[in-house]
């Protein structure tokens, strides 16, 4: 019904014939997009939030591995959990910290819940698809990495990332670039080794492995202990699936996860426009040359009349 409305509206001529064609094909284009689903043997990390104790060892490990600057407060200072950025929101990833642990006091839960945040290494990353210099790359191992040397600094990837992950080194006047977790690609993942944060965690919160195996493991854990987990593997399907996935005993929307992201990769929301581009490129020139000829013929006809 909705579609019918739209069609008949467009036929009303408000937008013109070409737009009908454009909307028509972009619908098909959209239908033609299936989830890419990522590389079959890509790696991932399963994060079991129920086990995290908020020691921030992972933050420290990341800082060291990625050669990040000294933090303002030391990694064993728990007061960072109470820090609030604008809007009363907890700490997020920054140019100095590719991963942060957040604390959530959940009513009725014995201990607070800790949540480690870093890039989720999406199967079809929004950051990658939005970048106009193609700086990002999804490697077959599953990491989403980027080339600093071509980053222009338009920050569209920051707008596009549904998880608010990429940060930007605003403080640098001469070489500001995007900064985010790269799943330790250069130093570890490339050689098949788990990321630094994963290895450093004393509680074994994170499991490194093939994404498809991790999915099995996650569902296994849920079915083994249905009371200990909510029945949702966050990241299995969100925005087309992510390499990092999460298990929790508290509903995800209560602990800062966006549960309204849908299962379509972000690029699918842009396809309507992208599908329209070739239509405009091909139809417009003919259409408007036609208009021009028509309006000039009228003139010519008038001139004829005037003459006779």
């Amino acid at each position: 019904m909705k579609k019918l409305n739209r069609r008949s509206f467009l036929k009303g001529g408000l937008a013109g014939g070409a737009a009908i064609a454009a909307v028509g094909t972009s619908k098909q284009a959209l239908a033609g997009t299936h989830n890419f689903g990522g590389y079959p043997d890509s790696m991932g990390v399963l994060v079991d939030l129920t086990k995290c104790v908020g020691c921030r060892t992972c933050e420290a490990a990341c800082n060291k591995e990625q050669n990040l600057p000294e933090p303002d407060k030391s990694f064993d200072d728990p007061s960072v959990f109470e820090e609030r950025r604008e809007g009363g929101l907890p700490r997020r990833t920054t140019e100095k910290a590719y991963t942060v642990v957040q604390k959530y006091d959940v009513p009725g839960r014995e201990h607070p819940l800790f949540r480690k945040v870093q890039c989720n290494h999406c199967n079809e990353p929004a950051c990658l698809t939005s970048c106009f210099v193609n700086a990002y790359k999804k490697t077959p191992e599953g990491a989403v990495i980027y080339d600093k040397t071509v980053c222009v600094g338009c920050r569209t990837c920051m707008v596009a990332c549904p998880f608010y992950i990429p940060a930007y080194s605003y403080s640098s006047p001469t070489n500001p670039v995007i900064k985010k977790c790269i799943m330790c690609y250069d130093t570890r993942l490339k050689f098949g080794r788990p990321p630094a944060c994963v290895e450093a965690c004393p509680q074994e919160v994170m499991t490194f492995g093939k994404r498809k195996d991790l999915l099995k493991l996650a569902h296994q854990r849920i079915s083994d202990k249905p009371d200990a987990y909510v029945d949702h593997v966050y990241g299995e399907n969100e925005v087309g699936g992510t390499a990092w996935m999460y298990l929790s005993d508290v509903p995800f929307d209560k602990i800062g996860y966006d549960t309204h992201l849908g299962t379509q990769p972000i690029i699918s929301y842009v396809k309507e426009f992208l599908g329209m581009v070739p239509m405009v490129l091909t139809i417009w020139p003919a259409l408007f040359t036609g208009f021009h000829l028509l309006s000039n013929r009228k003139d010519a006809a008038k001139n004829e009349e005037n003459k006779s």
Partner: protein
Amino acid sequence: MNSLKSQGFAPVVSDLKKDGSEWTVKEKIMLGLSPKEYWAVQLRNPFNWVLWAIYAIGVPILVGRFIFGLGWVTHSSYDYPWGLFLGWGLFTMVPLSASGFMMGTTVELFGRKDFKSIERLGLLNGLLGYLFAVVFLQVDLGQPWRLIYPMFVSLGPAAVLFLVAWHVATYLTCQVAELVPAFSEWMGFPKAKKFIKSIVLGLTIAGIILSTLHQGALGALFTYAPGKVHPLWYSSPFQWLHFFVSAVFAGLSMLIVVSTLTKWFMRWRCDENYLSNLSKLTLGLAKGASMALITYLVIKIIGIAHDNNWAYLLTGWGAWFMFEMVVGVILPLIFYTMAVRNSNASLARFAAILAVFGIALNRLNTALIAFNWQLYREIPHWRELVIVFTVYATYIVVYRAVLARMPILYTWKEKK
């Protein structure tokens, strides 16, 4: 200058002075005044005092932006990567500059020669708007010296911004070409004008294609952020159409506003032909704008219906949205329609001001205010605001300087 003219000053309108000798380029730049007179006029103008005040504060801050980095002039927000530089400088300036392709289409393509006397103002408004959108972009980009990377170094052709970059660049070239005739008359190079005349149809059609796509693309940029932009300002299938159609009335309304300003403040520079036709042409533009407005209103409603967002209208965001729609769309639509019916150009001018305000509000809403609607509102840093004023002031200065010299508001008297 208006008062000078009433005292008998005659501005440059052709290659030749009254006594038959040629104006030199320097004299033309000085508007045909002696240097002393010229500077005296500049000093007397209170608007210039305001500009100097803006520059006194703004230039050091603008220089500081490049020395100390973006972090010094903005809040360095990771959640709001785009601030006023793009929200105003790109997303608002570009639709307000759509007049270029609209006038080209009307005059060159549809053969409406009756719009000829305002065509060049439309083209200039387009060119300068785009030029300064690029200036704003350069202020905002982290590494402005890499601006050509998406063109030649590392290409990401599947990204919407890639399309914007290429199209704005090509379209700028197009617009420069379209204004070559005005420049060549003023400088006295008739050949250039002839050449452009021979390709003007191609330029115009290229202009339409590029404009449709990049105006739409600016909207499509926000479809990358489906969860971040408030649903009332977001529609994945229609965002590009909303941006494109609203650019049509934005460009026309801006042209009405600018032409009104010229009529008041630069009357000395306008010729009889321009002034006597202006009211009629304003109504012509008003008619076009009202058609775009009604189309926009309908597709906005369809956008809401398509995603079934009616419930949001009852929230605080809904009230804000209704404010934007009533003041920026429905009222201008009503006033434009009344203006056309009663041949009331003043009412059309008032409607144009509302529509320009409405567009600015819409773009700022989409890019900043209703962006991250579930998080918090970002208040721009004062230095960011100062830079916006400084760059915009420069836009006005350049605009005024060109209008005062080149044959935009008057017709050049060709040598016989």
